[in-house]
């Protein structure tokens, strides 16, 4: 019987596109794990995160990062955060659950989202065309995260640098999502 191997494929084939003033690229090396805070378990989780990751629980709409920059925790809901970290193997949940144990409930979300990085001086002009949020640097600070919709698609937007953002949208509509972002860039150039 021949060996059956399963090779992974990313939602957007690892694209990278350079426009005048905007760089658009697919993020393929990050894992995403949902961490649900048990009812009444906030302080226990907070303590464990401090001990294991030396990082605080992020407020909703904000994120916290470990000092080595390896793990970023996104405040998604009152009782839910996402852990975003570099990891390409198949057991992202255990990386987190091995640290935080029974203080939370974990769900792998790594495969659920197509992730794009958009960066450069024209980024906000392009995003104006599809993002209803106020992305002014003074209003949406570095590390801010929000759920929104862009062209009828659910999108999580995270500001990662002066002029760069991570955009996450459900995997199944990745092509439509890419088209929406590319069209925005082309329309403003």
């Amino acid at each position, binding site marked *: *019987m*021949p*060996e*059956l*191997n*399963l*090779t*992974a*494929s*990313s939602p957007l084939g690892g694209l990278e596109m350079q426009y005048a003033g905007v760089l658009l690229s697919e993020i393929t090396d990050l894992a995403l794990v*949902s961490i*649900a805070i*048990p*009812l*009444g378990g906030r302080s226990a989780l907070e303590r464990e995160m401090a001990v294991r990751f030396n990082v605080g629980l992020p407020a909703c709409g904000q994120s916290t990062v470990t000092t080595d920059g390896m793990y970023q925790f996104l405040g998604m809901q009152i*009782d*839910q955060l996402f852990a975003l970290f570099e990891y390409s193997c*198949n*057991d992202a949940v255990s990386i987190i659950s091995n640290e935080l144990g029974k203080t939370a*409930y974990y*769900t*792998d*979300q*790594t*495969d*659920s*989202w197509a992730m794009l990085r958009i960066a450069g001086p024209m980024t906000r002009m392009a995003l*104006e*065309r*599809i*993002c*209803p*949020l*106020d992305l*002014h640097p003074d*209003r949406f600070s570095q590390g801010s995260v929000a759920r929104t919709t862009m*062209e*009828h*698609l659910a999108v999580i937007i995270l500001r990662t640098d002066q002029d760069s953002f991570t955009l996450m949208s*459900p*995997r*199944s*509509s*990745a*092509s*439509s*999502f890419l*088209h*929406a972002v590319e*069209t925005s860039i082309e*329309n403003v150039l």
Partner: protein
Amino acid sequence: MIQVNRIAGGLIDRSQPLDFFFNGQQLSGFSGDTLASALIANDQKLVARSFKYHRPRGIFSAGSEEPNALVELRNGPSQEPNTRATVAELFDGLEATSQNHRGSLAFDLMAINDLFAPILSAGFYYKTFMWPKAFWEKVYEPIIRASAGLGRLSGDDDPDSYDKGFLHCDVLIIGAGPTGIAAALAAGRAGARVIFADEDFLIGGRLNAETFEVEGQAGPQWATQSVTELNSLSNVRLMPRTSVYGSFDHGIFGAVERMTDQLPGTRGKPRQVLWRIYSKRAVLCAGATERSIAFGNNDRPGVMLAGSVRAYVNRWGVAPGKRVAVFTNNDDGWRTALDLISKGINISAVIDTRSQRPTFDLPGVKIVMGGRIINSSGRKCLTTLLLADGQSIKADCLAVSGGWNPNVQLSCHQRGKPVWRDDIAAFVPGRDLPVGMEVAGAANGALTLAAALGQGHNAGNAAAIAIGYNPSGNPAPKAEDEASGIIGFWHVAESKARAWLDLQNDVTVKDLRIAQSEGLHSVEHLKRYTTLGMATDQGKLANVPALAIMAELTGKSIPETGTTIFRPPYTPVPIGAFGGRSRGKAFRPTRLTPSHKWAEEQGAVFVETGMWLRAQWFPRSGETHWRQSVDREVMQTRSSVGVCDVTTLGKIDVQGRDAAVFLNRIYANGFAKLPVGKTRYGLMLREDGIAMDDGTTARLSEHQFVMTTTTSNAVSVFRHMEFCRQCLWPGLDVHLISATEQWAQYAVAGPNSRPLLRKVIDPDFDISNEAFPFMACGEITMCGGIPGRLFRISFSGELAYEIAVPARYGDALVRALMAAGSEYHVVPYGTEALGVMRVEKGHAAGNELTGQTTARDLGMGRMVSKKKDSIGSVLSERIALNREDGLALVGFIPVNRAEALRAGAHFVSQNKAAIIENDEGWMTSVAFSPSHGHSIGLGFIKRGAERTGETVTAVDPLRGTNISVKIVSPHFIDPEGERLRA
């Protein structure tokens, strides 16, 4: 190509001449011209024909309020009808055609309508076109349709693209005339985030049309200088060519920005952008629009608004006439005489309706105080005016000023009513303004320059302070207040000839009298009965004079009469701009399954299921009809093994100490005691006891479940569960997150499903019948350690599993399954075969869960556990839902096996008439069963469980067939379930 009416001066660029075409004739103008100013330069007096009477029409104004000069702009698919020449920026090669005439503009065959004017007056269509009745559809309606409308569309798809966008600011300043500029300077200098929008392409508003001074400079110069300063501020965003068309809740405004309409082509970029502007504060500086005075034959080409005449002279350097008369009821109209005289244009008379001293001293000019014009004459354009005192005045242009109307519309879009001010004889914004909005300048009734600048300055500062900024301390820009006295005067009653109010829809004072005499006094009735204010100019010039005259006729005051309701858009917006990118394929996002690429390679035929594309069947070469493919897929799956992508079904991850308790309340049947490693079918009811959705839920651990839902209800079930979690039972420790996208999931069904899966799943996992029986579930690894999940559930009725792998491996897994299954002649099957097999098995699906059927109807009454409370349990016990003769889900076969059953047919007993009273139920799902070789169906029928073997009639009045059908068990294959448990 000589522009005979050009004069010196103006804000045009004579170093950039432009050629354009009107009705095929080549003419010339300059950069900075509008189409209207260029037409005036070329002495084109006649530009259109009116709607009803096809009377000659000339350019009336210089702004977006224009009622007459509507053209079809551009040719081919980009042709846009009803474009106002007064706001269309001239570009090289512009092509425009006049509208609403049969034959040429100069010799319109439809002008004969004017002879029928007496019977075409207000409301005529309520009194005509009724006899003979037969004539309506074939004669009258086609004629009316052919005459309706003004301009024509090309009939082709709009070839341009449009975009949308979202902007945020502290202060939105609407209108860039003197008021707006003062407000923008104040707020901008204070450091607020300002968006500053104007519909024009040149910032400055009426400063560009007048000869005022601000801060000791000419108005246009001060405007340009202010623009330079505002552009230098990084917190200010100037948006010319942007119409703020609507004021919506919470400080949100709609605006449309014209990106390429001033260019010969779009160069592939969006033609216009529809912006949603979120503001904390807004200052409405929309200025005021002048209105006319009605008198006999006041619609003749050459009659224009006085302020517009000065705009053409001052801003565009063109003279609309060589002998200009002025007719006014206020001081402002006199400015036209002053400005034209200073440009050397002859003023034949100034006629002021007020009996008082002349506003200005004009030596050598005929002045008639207390005068009234009762008629005009001239064949295609004005030559002579007739006064009430019998005098005859020669004029080729009449500049009329009936006063100025503040542009209050945006302040009234949320049902605010404007209030009347006698001193300016105009409506101003009332007290009920949209939240965060202030009105300043002429829009607020401050009709003179210094007052307007002061209000703009103060409003800009106030807005900045309200948000928390400090004003810069600069004083308001300095200017003088011009004379502005007015005595309201709306129409010359002595006129015998018709006096126009709505130039575009051809509504006259006579029509108002008819409406009033027929009892239609209210402004809302007046509007709809006469169609005044219902044309593309939305009555900007007609509304106030009309309601003032109606007030006169009914003996009421103007405030008592009131205005109609203003609604967005303020000016027309192309439908394409509202559509944005949502056209064609991009109308909605498309969702693709993990096996999509592979399925495309197989030549699958796809079907849209909501936003998903799912493979419907996989034709093989030689197959010419879909039934061949589907029958083959069914037979091959049942005899060996088939694979189907079921990723689209909702998957909800449920975790928490109280997850089991939660599910027990959500589902009608019991879930609290579901063992770890087991899956159970679950039925969800609505609160009113009606069946809502079904699926299977697997218990992966003490505190973790994975629920599946139907594809179409994935979102609504998740929403329902979140509501229960957050609002009904916040004291439960339970957490939800969607896992639909996370896992690629395939059904593997058929007698050879187990051996196939053994080749894919790692040997550490025992999937024998003993170790992994029917309804088992668990985490596994496959293909050398790739994590996955296995569920032994069956929709087809065969021995079957669903195997899940993280979506990144979805494409690879389907290929591996096909490779592993080739020795078993594995067949991919699509949604059609999936549907056939579940009908053969007798599984309920969406067709049976209609939102009107209950668990009892579905034969699942006993599944609604009475040992615990769950949503819908109590109301499912209502008497009406539990009748003895209630519906039951059963199977149907045609008595004549060759006949095809039809879903949607209704059942009637054989000896009863096919009428509603005898309706006993309906057919929900049908399929051709390859297993049986004939059509089969599922359906609801009264007392169905007791009537097995009975023959009834399936009546289909829609398709005109009646078929005899026999009631059978809904389980057409393996009723004992032996295959499932093999």
